[in-house]
């Protein structure tokens, strides 16, 4: 009996020793340099090499996370803990070094304000509709097909019933994906502290604008005059606000004949 136990211990131990030694030797001899971060990420994964993530083993997945920005929640055996750990390793929890920006929609031409000009047939997306010149009377304004909503990864921008997108400032991370998605460049990234927004992008002349939209900028340039052109200037029939240098108060907004300007008083006071 003792011999039997001894034999089995010896064989398992011997095999273990043999392969352990071999592997240790190989690990030293055949080492290949790996990115430190990949290594760190790999340590947080479950290490089963089960392949459920769709990548060829844990190290490949770790590499994909670091290099190709693969989703971090694919490790099923690791579960939620792993996701948190990966985020820590990669420092994805947020970068607060510079002032954060939020998306701003610069159009007030909702479905009631701006009429449909034509009956469009085809793919339903802003970029597709803009290929045929858009279907609304204003050729600069929002068409409301929601490319921005689709582009947003954080569920922060939604098309409302009136056909205009609304940004949920709490959720917006300022990544700028919606800005890229909008074919008419209606969304801009404004600093969180900004308080004076021109909500129109139409470069048309005043009469053309007022014919199609009652809430559009007619390029009267009153807002700029009120502020003595400090931090605000006119370009292509449109006032352009430089958020960093603009110091004016809400007079410009009050005086605007078509109420294009949004003035956020709380932010203005906070800034003061």
């Amino acid at each position, binding site marked *: 009996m003792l011999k039997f136990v001894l034999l089995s211990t010896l064989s398992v131990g011997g095999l273990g020793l043999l392969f352990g030694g071999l592997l240790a030797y190989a690990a030293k001899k055949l080492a290949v340099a790996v990115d430190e971060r990949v290594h760190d990420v790999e340590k947080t994964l479950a290490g089963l090499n089960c392949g459920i993530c769709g990548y060829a083993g844990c190290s490949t997945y770790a590499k994909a996370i670091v290099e190709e920005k693969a989703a971090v929640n694919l490790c099923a055996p690791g579960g939620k803990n792993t996701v948190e750990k990966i985020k820590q390793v990669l420092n994805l929890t947020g970068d607060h070094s510079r002032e954060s920006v939020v998306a701003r929609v610069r159009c007030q031409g909702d479905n009631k304000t701006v009429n449909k*000009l*034509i*009956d469009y*047939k085809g793919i339903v997306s802003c970029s597709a509709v803009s*290929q*045929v*010149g858009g279907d609304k009377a204003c050729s600069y304004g929002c068409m409301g097909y929601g490319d921005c909503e689709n582009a947003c990864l954080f569920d922060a921008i939604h098309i409302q019933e009136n056909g205009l997108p609304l940004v949920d400032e709490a959720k917006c991370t300022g990544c700028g994906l919606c800005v890229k998605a909008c074919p008419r460049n209606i969304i801009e990234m404004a600093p969180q502290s900004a308080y004076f927004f021109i909500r129109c992008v139409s470069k048309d002349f005043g009469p053309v604008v007022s014919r199609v939209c009652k809430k559009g900028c007619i390029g009267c340039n009153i807002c700029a005059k009120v502020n003595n052109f400090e931090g605000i200037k006119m370009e292509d029939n449109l006032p352009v606000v430089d958020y960093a240098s603009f110091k004016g108060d809400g007079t410009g907004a009050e005086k605007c004949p078509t109420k294009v300007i949004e003035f956020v008083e709380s932010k203005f006071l906070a800034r003061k």
Partner: protein
Amino acid sequence: MLKTSISPHIHSPQNIEYAMRNVLIAMVPALLASVYFFGVRALWLEIISILTAILAETLMQLLLRKPVTVSDGSAAITGLLVAFNMPPNIPFYVPVVATALGIIVVKQLFGGLGHNIFNPALVGRVFVMFAWLPEMTTWNVPLHPDWIRHFNLFHINLDSITSATPLAVNKLQGMSALVSQFGSKTQLYLQSFLGNTGGCIGETSELAILIGAFYLFSRKVIWPTVPFVYIITVAVLTALMGQDPLFHILSGGLFLGAFFMATDYVTTPMTLSGSLVYAVGLGLLTVILRLKSGLPEGVSFSILLMNGLTPLIDKLIRVRTYGKQSKRGRDHE
């Protein structure tokens, strides 16, 4: 208000409904033949399958909150094809299960028309074949044509003699047994061609299927490449294996499969060269399965297996773009 869209602003009148309607029309001769040879029961099988298909599609589309598109006729085709692939004396629940499975799992769960990878009717058929093997392999000889005189729409019992299909006889007892059964070789060919043999209700009459197929060719709904290459491959290979090629192409479900299932738009390769590979593969598999496997018939399985290979064929076999040097394009960038 002016309408606008991206060019082109005109469109060919051939749409999905056109294609499906024509396929249904093309299946009518085979349907008539099935009723002629296997009686009212065949008709009921077909009606029940089609109704199940339509019902299953509607329910599934409602459940998945998609627009209901049964009116395009694709569900009806699936139902009819399932019925065509049933033995005449099958219990009615079998085609119901087969059709429902085909429509619900193989078609709608994959995303509906156009997204299915496999032919729904064939998966349904193969599924019930392994589910109820005894029922699915009991065949009846065709009825005596006299039955039409005692026509009764509700006479659904099929009281004719059971017999093995010609392919099974050939596999188990050899060609000579078949020839003696039919009298002469010419009789064997002729009866096989007309459909006066045992088998699934829709597959026996090659004549009826050919009529439908030529209708489809004339309407430009399908192209003759795949079916003919398939059939020729089977003939050549069976001849090479020392079998009777004419018998092999005229028996079993080869014609039904070649003209109505191997030409399905959704589950077959897109390029011409791809469909040639597909057709030759079909022939090869059919012959291998008929002669080497435990089953007497292999058309359904070969079509399904090639359905599975279709995405690979589509990916690997490409056509050279105008003005490009190599065929592969920039696939491996």
